[in-house]
Protein backbone atom coordinates (compact mmCIF):
# COMPACT_ATOMS: atom_id res chain seq x y z
CA UNK A 1 0.00 0.00 0.00
CA UNK A 2 1.20 3.43 -0.90
CA UNK A 3 2.35 5.80 1.76
CA UNK A 4 -0.48 8.09 2.92
CA UNK A 5 -0.20 11.67 1.73
CA UNK A 6 -1.06 13.33 4.99
CA UNK A 7 -1.06 11.95 8.50
CA UNK A 8 -2.45 14.12 11.26
CA UNK A 9 -1.87 12.72 14.72
CA UNK A 10 -3.64 13.98 17.86
CA UNK A 11 -3.30 17.67 17.04
CA UNK A 12 -4.32 20.11 19.79
CA UNK A 13 -4.79 23.84 19.71
CA UNK A 14 -6.42 26.07 22.25
CA UNK A 15 -6.98 29.81 22.33
CA UNK A 16 -6.98 30.73 26.00
CA UNK A 17 -9.58 28.50 27.59
CA UNK A 18 -11.19 27.49 24.31
CA UNK A 19 -10.11 24.18 22.87
CA UNK A 20 -10.41 24.97 19.19
CA UNK A 21 -8.94 21.69 17.98
CA UNK A 22 -8.96 18.83 20.44
CA UNK A 23 -7.00 15.68 19.75
CA UNK A 24 -7.84 15.36 16.05
CA UNK A 25 -6.27 12.55 14.05
CA UNK A 26 -6.90 11.47 10.49
CA UNK A 27 -5.04 10.41 7.42
CA UNK A 28 -5.38 11.06 3.72
CA UNK A 29 -4.46 8.92 0.75
CA UNK A 30 -2.92 10.22 -2.46
CA UNK A 31 -5.33 12.12 -4.70
CA UNK A 32 -8.14 11.86 -2.20
CA UNK A 33 -10.70 14.63 -1.86
CA UNK A 34 -11.67 15.11 1.73
CA UNK A 35 -14.59 17.20 2.92
CA UNK A 36 -14.32 18.88 6.29
CA UNK A 37 -17.65 19.92 7.73
CA UNK A 38 -19.03 20.96 11.06
CA UNK A 39 -21.17 23.64 12.69
CA UNK A 40 -19.87 27.17 13.08
CA UNK A 41 -16.96 27.40 15.49
CA UNK A 42 -16.17 23.71 15.21
CA UNK A 43 -12.51 24.41 14.48
CA UNK A 44 -12.44 23.66 10.77
CA UNK A 45 -10.54 26.75 9.74
CA UNK A 46 -8.24 26.39 12.73
CA UNK A 47 -7.43 22.85 11.67
CA UNK A 48 -6.57 24.03 8.15
CA UNK A 49 -4.41 26.80 9.55
CA UNK A 50 -2.56 24.26 11.67
CA UNK A 51 -1.84 22.23 8.56
CA UNK A 52 -0.44 25.21 6.64
CA UNK A 53 1.65 26.49 9.52
CA UNK A 54 -0.17 29.79 9.95
CA UNK A 55 -0.93 28.61 13.49
CA UNK A 56 1.34 26.35 15.50
CA UNK A 57 -0.34 23.40 17.24
CA UNK A 58 0.12 23.04 20.99
CA UNK A 59 0.88 19.36 20.53
CA UNK A 60 0.58 16.64 17.96
CA UNK A 61 2.20 16.06 14.62
CA UNK A 62 1.34 16.60 10.98
CA UNK A 63 3.23 14.53 8.44
CA UNK A 64 3.06 15.29 4.73
CA UNK A 65 4.62 12.57 2.58
CA UNK A 66 6.59 11.49 5.61
CA UNK A 67 7.90 14.98 6.39
CA UNK A 68 6.96 16.70 9.61
CA UNK A 69 5.17 19.99 8.97
CA UNK A 70 4.90 21.24 12.54
CA UNK A 71 7.62 23.77 13.23
CA UNK A 72 8.20 24.69 9.60
CA UNK A 73 7.63 28.13 8.19
CA UNK A 74 4.56 28.79 6.09
CA UNK A 75 6.58 29.28 2.92
CA UNK A 76 8.50 26.05 3.48
CA UNK A 77 5.25 24.16 3.79
CA UNK A 78 3.90 25.77 0.64
CA UNK A 79 7.08 24.88 -1.19
CA UNK A 80 6.68 21.27 -0.06
CA UNK A 81 3.41 21.26 -1.94
CA UNK A 82 0.64 22.28 0.45
CA UNK A 83 -1.27 25.32 -0.76
CA UNK A 84 -4.20 26.95 0.94
CA UNK A 85 -6.84 29.54 0.22
CA UNK A 86 -8.17 31.95 2.80
CA UNK A 87 -11.75 31.97 3.96
CA UNK A 88 -11.85 35.74 4.10
CA UNK A 89 -10.09 36.45 0.84
CA UNK A 90 -6.77 38.24 1.11
CA UNK A 91 -5.86 39.62 -2.30
CA UNK A 92 -3.19 42.28 -2.84
CA UNK A 93 -5.82 44.89 -3.51
CA UNK A 94 -3.70 47.57 -5.14
CA UNK A 95 -1.92 45.17 -7.47
CA UNK A 96 -3.25 43.98 -10.82
CA UNK A 97 -4.90 40.59 -10.67
CA UNK A 98 -2.15 38.98 -12.69
CA UNK A 99 0.47 40.27 -10.26
CA UNK A 100 -1.46 38.60 -7.45
CA UNK A 101 -0.90 35.26 -9.13
CA UNK A 102 2.64 36.08 -10.22
CA UNK A 103 3.69 36.28 -6.59
CA UNK A 104 2.68 32.65 -6.27
CA UNK A 105 4.45 31.75 -9.49
CA UNK A 106 7.65 33.31 -8.13
CA UNK A 107 7.83 30.89 -5.21
CA UNK A 108 10.80 28.51 -5.48
CA UNK A 109 8.53 25.49 -5.97
CA UNK A 110 6.68 26.97 -8.90
CA UNK A 111 9.59 28.91 -10.36
CA UNK A 112 11.91 25.93 -10.39
CA UNK A 113 9.53 23.69 -12.29
CA UNK A 114 9.09 23.46 -16.03
CA UNK A 115 12.23 23.72 -18.11
CA UNK A 116 10.61 25.35 -21.07
CA UNK A 117 8.24 27.65 -19.23
CA UNK A 118 10.30 30.43 -17.76
CA UNK A 119 7.86 33.24 -18.28
CA UNK A 120 6.18 33.95 -14.98
CA UNK A 121 3.48 36.03 -16.65
CA UNK A 122 2.43 33.17 -18.93
CA UNK A 123 2.10 30.76 -16.06
CA UNK A 124 0.11 33.27 -14.03
CA UNK A 125 -2.13 33.92 -17.01
CA UNK A 126 -2.84 30.22 -17.38
CA UNK A 127 -3.74 29.92 -13.71
CA UNK A 128 -6.13 32.83 -14.17
CA UNK A 129 -7.53 31.24 -17.29
CA UNK A 130 -8.20 28.06 -15.37
CA UNK A 131 -9.99 30.02 -12.67
CA UNK A 132 -11.95 31.87 -15.33
CA UNK A 133 -10.92 35.47 -14.58
CA UNK A 134 -8.24 35.91 -17.20
CA UNK A 135 -10.29 38.58 -19.00
CA UNK A 136 -9.77 40.87 -16.03
CA UNK A 137 -6.07 40.09 -15.62
CA UNK A 138 -4.93 43.70 -15.78
CA UNK A 139 -7.57 45.22 -13.51
CA UNK A 140 -6.73 46.03 -9.92
CA UNK A 141 -7.76 43.28 -7.53
CA UNK A 142 -9.92 45.77 -5.63
CA UNK A 143 -12.52 45.78 -8.44
CA UNK A 144 -13.26 42.07 -8.14
CA UNK A 145 -16.57 40.79 -6.78
CA UNK A 146 -16.81 38.29 -3.96
CA UNK A 147 -17.11 35.36 -6.31
CA UNK A 148 -14.20 36.44 -8.45
CA UNK A 149 -12.05 36.94 -5.37
CA UNK A 150 -12.71 33.28 -4.51
CA UNK A 151 -11.57 32.40 -8.01
CA UNK A 152 -8.46 34.54 -7.55
CA UNK A 153 -7.70 32.67 -4.32
CA UNK A 154 -7.97 29.36 -6.17
CA UNK A 155 -5.80 30.66 -9.02
CA UNK A 156 -3.18 31.80 -6.55
CA UNK A 157 -3.19 28.45 -4.77
CA UNK A 158 -2.87 26.30 -7.89
CA UNK A 159 -0.16 28.54 -9.34
CA UNK A 160 2.23 27.21 -6.70
CA UNK A 161 1.62 23.73 -8.12
CA UNK A 162 0.41 21.99 -4.94
CA UNK A 163 0.05 18.33 -4.18
CA UNK A 164 -2.39 19.04 -1.39
CA UNK A 165 -4.82 21.89 -1.81
CA UNK A 166 -6.67 23.23 1.20
CA UNK A 167 -9.80 25.13 0.17
CA UNK A 168 -11.47 27.11 2.91
CA UNK A 169 -15.11 27.64 1.95
CA UNK A 170 -14.65 27.86 -1.81
CA UNK A 171 -18.41 28.33 -2.24
CA UNK A 172 -18.87 30.85 0.57
CA UNK A 173 -20.87 33.88 -0.58
CA UNK A 174 -21.31 32.62 -4.11
CA UNK A 175 -24.58 32.56 -6.02
CA UNK A 176 -25.95 29.11 -7.05
CA UNK A 177 -24.70 29.57 -10.60
CA UNK A 178 -21.25 30.61 -9.43
CA UNK A 179 -21.21 27.69 -7.01
CA UNK A 180 -21.87 25.26 -9.84
CA UNK A 181 -19.08 26.83 -11.85
CA UNK A 182 -16.66 26.65 -8.96
CA UNK A 183 -17.58 23.03 -8.25
CA UNK A 184 -16.94 22.24 -11.88
CA UNK A 185 -13.54 23.91 -11.73
CA UNK A 186 -12.61 21.96 -8.63
CA UNK A 187 -13.63 18.67 -10.22
CA UNK A 188 -11.66 19.55 -13.33
CA UNK A 189 -8.64 20.43 -11.26
CA UNK A 190 -8.84 17.15 -9.39
CA UNK A 191 -8.94 15.18 -12.60
CA UNK A 192 -5.65 16.79 -13.50
CA UNK A 193 -4.20 17.51 -16.87
CA UNK A 194 -2.72 20.41 -18.66
CA UNK A 195 -4.20 23.86 -18.47
CA UNK A 196 -2.15 25.84 -20.93
CA UNK A 197 1.34 25.89 -19.47
CA UNK A 198 0.10 24.90 -16.07
CA UNK A 199 0.44 21.20 -15.48
CA UNK A 200 -1.69 19.67 -12.78
CA UNK A 201 -1.23 16.19 -11.42
CA UNK A 202 -4.62 16.42 -9.82
CA UNK A 203 -3.86 17.44 -6.25
CA UNK A 204 -5.45 15.90 -3.21
CA UNK A 205 -7.80 18.35 -1.55
CA UNK A 206 -9.33 19.18 1.76
CA UNK A 207 -12.46 21.26 1.31
CA UNK A 208 -14.12 23.08 4.17
CA UNK A 209 -17.67 23.92 3.22
CA UNK A 210 -21.14 24.60 4.52
CA UNK A 211 -22.98 23.99 1.27
CA UNK A 212 -23.22 20.25 1.79
CA UNK A 213 -25.27 19.49 -1.29
CA UNK A 214 -22.49 20.71 -3.57
CA UNK A 215 -19.75 19.30 -1.40
CA UNK A 216 -21.18 15.77 -1.44
CA UNK A 217 -20.81 15.63 -5.21
CA UNK A 218 -17.10 16.37 -5.10
CA UNK A 219 -15.65 14.57 -2.11
CA UNK A 220 -14.65 10.97 -1.61
CA UNK A 221 -14.75 11.07 2.15
CA UNK A 222 -16.00 13.45 4.83
CA UNK A 223 -14.75 14.35 8.27
CA UNK A 224 -17.11 16.00 10.73
CA UNK A 225 -15.76 18.25 13.45
CA UNK A 226 -17.76 19.47 16.42
CA UNK A 227 -16.34 21.58 19.24
CA UNK A 228 -12.86 20.77 18.04
CA UNK A 229 -13.23 17.03 18.22
CA UNK A 230 -13.61 14.50 15.47
CA UNK A 231 -17.26 13.50 15.44
CA UNK A 232 -17.54 11.20 12.45
CA UNK A 233 -15.63 10.03 9.44
CA UNK A 234 -16.78 8.20 6.35
CA UNK A 235 -18.25 8.36 2.88
CA UNK A 236 -20.81 11.11 2.24
CA UNK A 237 -23.74 8.69 2.59
CA UNK A 238 -22.52 7.31 5.89
CA UNK A 239 -21.97 10.75 7.30
CA UNK A 240 -25.34 12.14 6.33
CA UNK A 241 -27.11 9.26 7.97
CA UNK A 242 -25.01 9.34 11.11
CA UNK A 243 -27.34 10.30 14.01
CA UNK A 244 -24.54 12.10 15.86
CA UNK A 245 -23.92 14.36 12.89
CA UNK A 246 -27.60 15.16 12.51
CA UNK A 247 -27.72 15.99 16.19
CA UNK A 248 -24.71 18.30 15.94
CA UNK A 249 -26.23 20.17 13.03
CA UNK A 250 -29.91 20.22 13.97
CA UNK A 251 -30.00 19.49 17.69
CA UNK A 252 -31.79 16.62 19.43
CA UNK A 253 -35.26 15.63 18.30
CA UNK A 254 -38.00 17.23 20.34
CA UNK A 255 -40.32 14.29 20.80
Amino acid at each position, binding site marked *: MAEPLLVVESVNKSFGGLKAVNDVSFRMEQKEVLGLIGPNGAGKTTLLRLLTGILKPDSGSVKFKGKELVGRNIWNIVNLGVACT*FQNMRPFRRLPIIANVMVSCLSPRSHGKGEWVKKVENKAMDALEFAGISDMALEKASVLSQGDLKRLEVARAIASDPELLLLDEPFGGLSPAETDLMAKSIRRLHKGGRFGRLHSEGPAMIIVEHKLQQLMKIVDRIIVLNFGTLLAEGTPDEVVNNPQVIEAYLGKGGD
Partner: protein
Amino acid sequence: MGLVIFYVKKLFKIFRNEVLVLPSRVVVGLFFIVLLGLPLVTQDPYFIRIIILTSIFAIFAASWDLLSGFTGQMNFGHALFFGVGAYGSAMLNIHFNIPPWATIPMGAIVAVLAGLIVGIPCLRLKHTYLALTTLAFPIILLGIIIALPDISGGELGMTGLKRITESLLGNYYLHVGVFLVLAVIMWEITDSNTGIIFHAIREDELAVKASGINTVFYKLLAFCLSGFFAGIAGGLYAHYMRIAGPSTLGVDQSFTVVIYAIFGGAATIYGPIAAVFILFPLLEVFRLWPEYRMMLFAAVVLVILLYMPEGLIHWIRDKIEKECPRCKIRNIATRKTCRICTANLD
Protein backbone atom coordinates in the same frame (compact mmCIF):
# COMPACT_ATOMS: atom_id res chain seq x y z
CA MET B 1 25.87 52.96 -45.68
CA GLY B 2 22.35 51.74 -46.35
CA LEU B 3 22.59 49.63 -43.22
CA VAL B 4 23.50 52.63 -41.12
CA ILE B 5 20.55 54.59 -42.46
CA PHE B 6 18.32 51.60 -41.78
CA TYR B 7 19.36 51.41 -38.16
CA VAL B 8 19.14 55.17 -37.70
CA LYS B 9 15.62 55.06 -39.07
CA LYS B 10 14.78 52.14 -36.83
CA LEU B 11 16.15 53.93 -33.78
CA PHE B 12 14.20 57.04 -34.64
CA LYS B 13 11.05 54.95 -35.07
CA ILE B 14 11.51 53.35 -31.65
CA PHE B 15 12.14 56.78 -30.18
CA ARG B 16 8.98 58.17 -31.76
CA ASN B 17 6.77 55.22 -30.87
CA GLU B 18 8.02 54.55 -27.36
CA VAL B 19 9.20 57.87 -25.96
CA LEU B 20 7.37 60.65 -27.70
CA VAL B 21 3.92 59.08 -27.26
CA LEU B 22 3.75 59.65 -23.53
CA PRO B 23 4.28 63.02 -21.85
CA SER B 24 5.71 61.38 -18.75
CA ARG B 25 8.43 59.70 -20.80
CA VAL B 26 9.17 62.96 -22.58
CA VAL B 27 9.47 64.68 -19.22
CA VAL B 28 11.87 62.03 -17.95
CA GLY B 29 13.93 62.36 -21.13
CA LEU B 30 14.01 66.14 -20.82
CA PHE B 31 14.96 65.79 -17.15
CA PHE B 32 17.99 63.70 -18.09
CA ILE B 33 19.00 66.09 -20.87
CA VAL B 34 18.55 69.24 -18.79
CA LEU B 35 20.42 67.77 -15.85
CA LEU B 36 23.35 66.66 -17.99
CA GLY B 37 23.39 69.81 -20.09
CA LEU B 38 22.96 72.34 -17.33
CA PRO B 39 26.65 73.35 -17.00
CA LEU B 40 26.57 74.46 -20.64
CA VAL B 41 24.10 77.16 -19.63
CA THR B 42 25.36 78.26 -16.25
CA GLN B 43 28.38 77.51 -14.14
CA ASP B 44 27.34 79.55 -11.15
CA PRO B 45 28.90 77.71 -8.14
CA TYR B 46 25.88 78.32 -5.94
CA PHE B 47 23.51 76.91 -8.50
CA ILE B 48 25.71 73.89 -9.15
CA ARG B 49 25.95 73.27 -5.42
CA ILE B 50 22.17 73.27 -5.05
CA ILE B 51 21.74 70.76 -7.86
CA ILE B 52 24.42 68.50 -6.36
CA LEU B 53 22.75 68.53 -2.95
CA THR B 54 19.38 67.96 -4.58
CA SER B 55 20.75 64.92 -6.39
CA ILE B 56 22.14 63.52 -3.15
CA PHE B 57 18.84 63.95 -1.33
CA ALA B 58 16.97 62.52 -4.30
CA ILE B 59 18.94 59.26 -3.90
CA PHE B 60 18.11 59.36 -0.20
CA ALA B 61 14.37 59.94 -0.76
CA ALA B 62 14.16 57.23 -3.41
CA SER B 63 15.85 54.75 -1.08
CA TRP B 64 13.23 55.51 1.59
CA ASP B 65 10.56 54.84 -1.00
CA LEU B 66 12.11 51.47 -1.84
CA LEU B 67 11.80 50.36 1.78
CA SER B 68 8.71 52.10 3.07
CA GLY B 69 6.73 52.98 -0.02
CA PHE B 70 7.12 49.64 -1.73
CA THR B 71 7.70 47.08 0.98
CA GLY B 72 5.55 48.92 3.50
CA GLN B 73 8.12 48.75 6.29
CA MET B 74 7.46 52.22 7.72
CA ASN B 75 10.90 53.56 8.50
CA PHE B 76 10.90 56.79 10.48
CA GLY B 77 14.60 56.51 11.18
CA HIS B 78 15.94 56.50 7.67
CA ALA B 79 18.60 59.02 8.68
CA LEU B 80 20.34 56.08 10.34
CA PHE B 81 21.46 54.75 6.95
CA PHE B 82 22.39 58.23 5.76
CA GLY B 83 24.35 58.91 8.94
CA VAL B 84 26.06 55.52 8.96
CA GLY B 85 27.04 56.04 5.33
CA ALA B 86 28.36 59.51 6.11
CA TYR B 87 30.20 58.60 9.31
CA GLY B 88 31.40 55.27 7.91
CA SER B 89 33.04 56.82 4.89
CA ALA B 90 34.31 59.77 6.93
CA MET B 91 36.03 57.53 9.50
CA LEU B 92 37.57 55.38 6.79
CA ASN B 93 38.78 58.51 5.05
CA ILE B 94 40.23 60.23 8.10
CA HIS B 95 41.48 57.37 10.26
CA PHE B 96 42.69 55.07 7.49
CA ASN B 97 43.40 57.61 4.74
CA ILE B 98 41.43 55.65 2.18
CA PRO B 99 40.57 57.78 -0.86
CA PRO B 100 36.94 58.96 -1.15
CA TRP B 101 36.05 56.93 -4.26
CA ALA B 102 36.64 53.81 -2.15
CA THR B 103 35.22 55.02 1.15
CA ILE B 104 31.79 55.86 -0.25
CA PRO B 105 30.99 52.29 -1.38
CA MET B 106 32.55 50.98 1.85
CA GLY B 107 30.39 53.36 3.87
CA ALA B 108 27.40 52.07 1.93
CA ILE B 109 28.34 48.52 2.89
CA VAL B 110 28.50 49.59 6.52
CA ALA B 111 25.01 51.02 6.00
CA VAL B 112 23.89 47.65 4.63
CA LEU B 113 25.14 46.05 7.84
CA ALA B 114 23.20 48.70 9.73
CA GLY B 115 20.18 47.72 7.64
CA LEU B 116 20.62 44.12 8.76
CA ILE B 117 21.06 45.14 12.38
CA VAL B 118 17.89 47.22 12.26
CA GLY B 119 16.02 44.83 10.01
CA ILE B 120 16.42 41.66 12.04
CA PRO B 121 14.78 42.92 15.24
CA CYS B 122 12.17 44.78 13.20
CA LEU B 123 11.02 41.69 11.30
CA ARG B 124 8.35 40.91 13.85
CA LEU B 125 7.04 44.46 14.09
CA LYS B 126 4.41 46.08 11.96
CA HIS B 127 2.97 49.51 11.26
CA THR B 128 3.16 51.93 14.17
CA TYR B 129 5.43 49.78 16.30
CA LEU B 130 7.89 49.39 13.49
CA ALA B 131 7.86 53.15 12.86
CA LEU B 132 8.53 53.91 16.51
CA THR B 133 11.30 51.34 16.81
CA THR B 134 13.09 52.52 13.70
CA LEU B 135 12.77 56.09 14.96
CA ALA B 136 14.86 55.09 17.96
CA PHE B 137 17.87 53.70 16.11
CA PRO B 138 19.41 56.94 14.78
CA ILE B 139 18.89 58.54 18.18
CA ILE B 140 20.77 55.67 19.82
CA LEU B 141 23.60 55.98 17.32
CA LEU B 142 23.69 59.74 17.84
CA GLY B 143 24.14 59.11 21.58
CA ILE B 144 27.01 56.72 20.89
CA ILE B 145 28.69 59.18 18.54
CA ILE B 146 28.49 62.03 21.02
CA ALA B 147 29.80 59.73 23.75
CA LEU B 148 32.90 58.83 21.73
CA PRO B 149 34.36 62.18 20.59
CA ASP B 150 37.85 60.74 20.00
CA ILE B 151 36.70 58.46 17.23
CA SER B 152 33.69 60.28 15.86
CA GLY B 153 34.44 63.94 16.48
CA GLY B 154 31.60 64.29 18.96
CA GLU B 155 29.12 67.09 18.53
CA LEU B 156 31.29 68.95 16.05
CA GLY B 157 31.40 66.06 13.65
CA MET B 158 34.31 64.90 11.56
CA THR B 159 35.80 67.67 9.50
CA GLY B 160 38.56 67.85 6.94
CA LEU B 161 37.31 65.16 4.61
CA LYS B 162 38.70 65.04 1.12
CA ARG B 163 36.47 65.65 -1.85
CA ILE B 164 36.57 63.15 -4.68
CA THR B 165 37.47 65.88 -7.08
CA GLU B 166 37.99 69.57 -6.55
CA SER B 167 36.78 70.80 -9.91
CA LEU B 168 33.30 72.26 -10.13
CA LEU B 169 32.24 70.39 -13.25
CA GLY B 170 33.82 67.17 -12.07
CA ASN B 171 31.84 67.31 -8.88
CA TYR B 172 28.67 68.16 -10.75
CA TYR B 173 28.91 65.32 -13.24
CA LEU B 174 30.03 62.85 -10.60
CA HIS B 175 27.08 63.49 -8.30
CA VAL B 176 24.46 63.89 -11.00
CA GLY B 177 25.79 60.84 -12.81
CA VAL B 178 25.73 58.69 -9.68
CA PHE B 179 22.24 59.94 -8.93
CA LEU B 180 20.92 59.12 -12.41
CA VAL B 181 22.51 55.67 -12.44
CA LEU B 182 21.23 54.79 -8.97
CA ALA B 183 17.77 56.13 -9.77
CA VAL B 184 17.60 53.92 -12.86
CA ILE B 185 18.83 50.93 -10.84
CA MET B 186 16.20 51.52 -8.15
CA TRP B 187 13.53 51.88 -10.80
CA GLU B 188 14.63 48.62 -12.41
CA ILE B 189 14.53 46.82 -9.06
CA THR B 190 11.00 47.97 -8.36
CA ASP B 191 9.93 47.16 -11.91
CA SER B 192 11.20 43.59 -11.70
CA ASN B 193 9.65 40.48 -10.16
CA THR B 194 11.30 41.42 -6.88
CA GLY B 195 9.36 44.68 -7.02
CA ILE B 196 6.10 42.75 -7.33
CA ILE B 197 6.97 40.80 -4.21
CA PHE B 198 7.82 44.05 -2.39
CA HIS B 199 4.43 45.46 -3.39
CA ALA B 200 2.68 42.31 -2.26
CA ILE B 201 4.43 42.33 1.13
CA ARG B 202 3.08 45.82 1.70
CA GLU B 203 -0.44 44.71 0.81
CA ASP B 204 -0.68 41.51 2.82
CA GLU B 205 2.30 39.76 4.30
CA LEU B 206 0.49 36.59 5.37
CA ALA B 207 -0.87 36.05 1.88
CA VAL B 208 2.65 36.39 0.47
CA LYS B 209 3.89 33.77 2.91
CA ALA B 210 1.00 31.52 1.91
CA SER B 211 2.09 31.92 -1.70
CA GLY B 212 5.38 30.27 -0.81
CA ILE B 213 7.60 33.35 -0.67
CA ASN B 214 10.21 33.69 2.05
CA THR B 215 9.12 37.09 3.31
CA VAL B 216 11.91 37.32 5.88
CA PHE B 217 14.45 37.22 3.08
CA TYR B 218 12.63 39.80 1.00
CA LYS B 219 12.10 42.17 3.92
CA LEU B 220 15.78 41.98 4.85
CA LEU B 221 16.63 42.46 1.17
CA ALA B 222 14.54 45.63 1.16
CA PHE B 223 16.29 46.87 4.30
CA CYS B 224 19.72 46.13 2.81
CA LEU B 225 19.02 47.64 -0.60
CA SER B 226 17.53 50.72 0.97
CA GLY B 227 20.44 50.96 3.38
CA PHE B 228 22.91 50.62 0.54
CA PHE B 229 21.44 53.45 -1.53
CA ALA B 230 20.94 55.71 1.48
CA GLY B 231 24.50 54.91 2.58
CA ILE B 232 25.86 56.01 -0.79
CA ALA B 233 23.85 59.23 -0.46
CA GLY B 234 25.31 59.74 3.01
CA GLY B 235 28.85 59.10 1.84
CA LEU B 236 28.48 61.48 -1.09
CA TYR B 237 27.04 64.11 1.24
CA ALA B 238 29.85 63.77 3.76
CA HIS B 239 32.56 64.01 1.13
CA TYR B 240 30.88 66.84 -0.73
CA MET B 241 30.22 68.93 2.38
CA ARG B 242 33.57 67.77 3.79
CA ILE B 243 31.93 67.15 7.15
CA ALA B 244 30.05 64.26 8.72
CA GLY B 245 28.15 65.86 11.56
CA PRO B 246 25.44 64.79 13.99
CA SER B 247 22.88 66.56 11.80
CA THR B 248 23.09 63.67 9.30
CA LEU B 249 21.52 61.47 11.97
CA GLY B 250 18.95 64.00 13.14
CA VAL B 251 15.27 63.31 13.52
CA ASP B 252 14.47 66.12 11.09
CA GLN B 253 16.58 64.35 8.48
CA SER B 254 14.40 61.26 8.90
CA PHE B 255 11.22 63.23 8.60
CA THR B 256 12.15 65.43 5.65
CA VAL B 257 12.71 62.31 3.61
CA VAL B 258 9.24 61.09 4.56
CA ILE B 259 7.80 64.46 3.57
CA TYR B 260 9.59 64.34 0.21
CA ALA B 261 8.33 60.84 -0.53
CA ILE B 262 4.72 61.47 0.49
CA PHE B 263 4.71 64.79 -1.34
CA GLY B 264 5.77 63.21 -4.60
CA GLY B 265 3.76 60.03 -4.19
CA ALA B 266 4.99 56.95 -2.37
CA ALA B 267 5.72 53.62 -4.07
CA THR B 268 6.77 55.16 -7.37
CA ILE B 269 10.53 55.96 -7.05
CA TYR B 270 10.12 58.82 -9.54
CA GLY B 271 7.66 60.56 -7.17
CA PRO B 272 10.12 61.19 -4.32
CA ILE B 273 12.86 62.13 -6.78
CA ALA B 274 10.63 64.69 -8.46
CA ALA B 275 9.52 65.96 -5.06
CA VAL B 276 13.13 66.56 -3.99
CA PHE B 277 13.82 68.36 -7.25
CA ILE B 278 10.81 70.60 -6.58
CA LEU B 279 11.02 71.13 -2.84
CA PHE B 280 14.74 71.42 -2.27
CA PRO B 281 15.28 74.31 -4.74
CA LEU B 282 12.02 75.80 -3.47
CA LEU B 283 13.49 75.92 0.03
CA GLU B 284 16.37 77.92 -1.43
CA VAL B 285 13.93 80.31 -3.13
CA PHE B 286 12.22 80.82 0.22
CA ARG B 287 15.51 82.17 1.57
CA LEU B 288 14.28 85.47 0.12
CA TRP B 289 12.00 85.63 3.15
CA PRO B 290 14.19 84.00 5.78
CA GLU B 291 11.76 84.40 8.70
CA TYR B 292 8.92 82.64 6.88
CA ARG B 293 11.04 80.03 5.13
CA MET B 294 9.90 76.92 6.98
CA MET B 295 6.36 78.20 7.29
CA LEU B 296 6.07 78.64 3.54
CA PHE B 297 7.55 75.21 3.04
CA ALA B 298 4.98 73.68 5.40
CA ALA B 299 2.17 75.59 3.69
CA VAL B 300 3.18 74.29 0.25
CA VAL B 301 3.40 70.71 1.50
CA LEU B 302 0.07 70.93 3.33
CA VAL B 303 -1.80 72.45 0.40
CA ILE B 304 -0.45 69.86 -2.02
CA LEU B 305 -1.28 66.95 0.28
CA LEU B 306 -4.73 68.37 1.02
CA TYR B 307 -5.74 68.43 -2.63
CA MET B 308 -3.55 65.62 -3.94
CA PRO B 309 -3.45 62.98 -1.22
CA GLU B 310 -1.91 60.47 -3.61
CA GLY B 311 1.03 62.78 -4.15
CA LEU B 312 1.78 65.56 -6.60
CA ILE B 313 3.31 63.43 -9.32
CA HIS B 314 0.45 60.92 -9.31
CA TRP B 315 -1.98 63.79 -9.68
CA ILE B 316 -0.12 65.41 -12.55
CA ARG B 317 0.35 62.08 -14.29
CA ASP B 318 -3.36 61.33 -14.09
CA LYS B 319 -4.11 64.74 -15.60
CA ILE B 320 -1.83 64.42 -18.60
CA GLU B 321 -2.27 60.72 -19.23
CA LYS B 322 -5.25 58.41 -19.42
CA GLU B 323 -5.23 54.69 -18.85
CA CYS B 324 -6.97 52.64 -21.51
CA PRO B 325 -9.90 50.88 -19.84
CA ARG B 326 -9.35 47.77 -21.92
CA CYS B 327 -5.63 47.13 -22.18
CA LYS B 328 -4.38 49.37 -19.32
CA ILE B 329 -1.81 51.01 -21.56
CA ARG B 330 -1.24 54.66 -20.77
CA ASN B 331 -2.12 57.26 -23.38
CA ILE B 332 -1.73 61.00 -23.64
CA ALA B 333 -4.89 62.69 -22.39
CA THR B 334 -5.65 64.34 -25.74
CA ARG B 335 -6.12 61.05 -27.55
CA LYS B 336 -9.63 59.78 -28.23
CA THR B 337 -8.67 56.13 -28.75
CA CYS B 338 -6.03 53.90 -27.23
CA ARG B 339 -2.79 53.83 -29.19
CA ILE B 340 -2.47 50.05 -28.87
CA CYS B 341 -5.94 48.54 -28.89
CA THR B 342 -7.93 51.47 -30.34
CA ALA B 343 -10.54 51.26 -27.60
CA ASN B 344 -12.45 54.44 -26.79
CA LEU B 345 -10.84 56.37 -23.99
CA ASP B 346 -13.81 58.69 -23.25
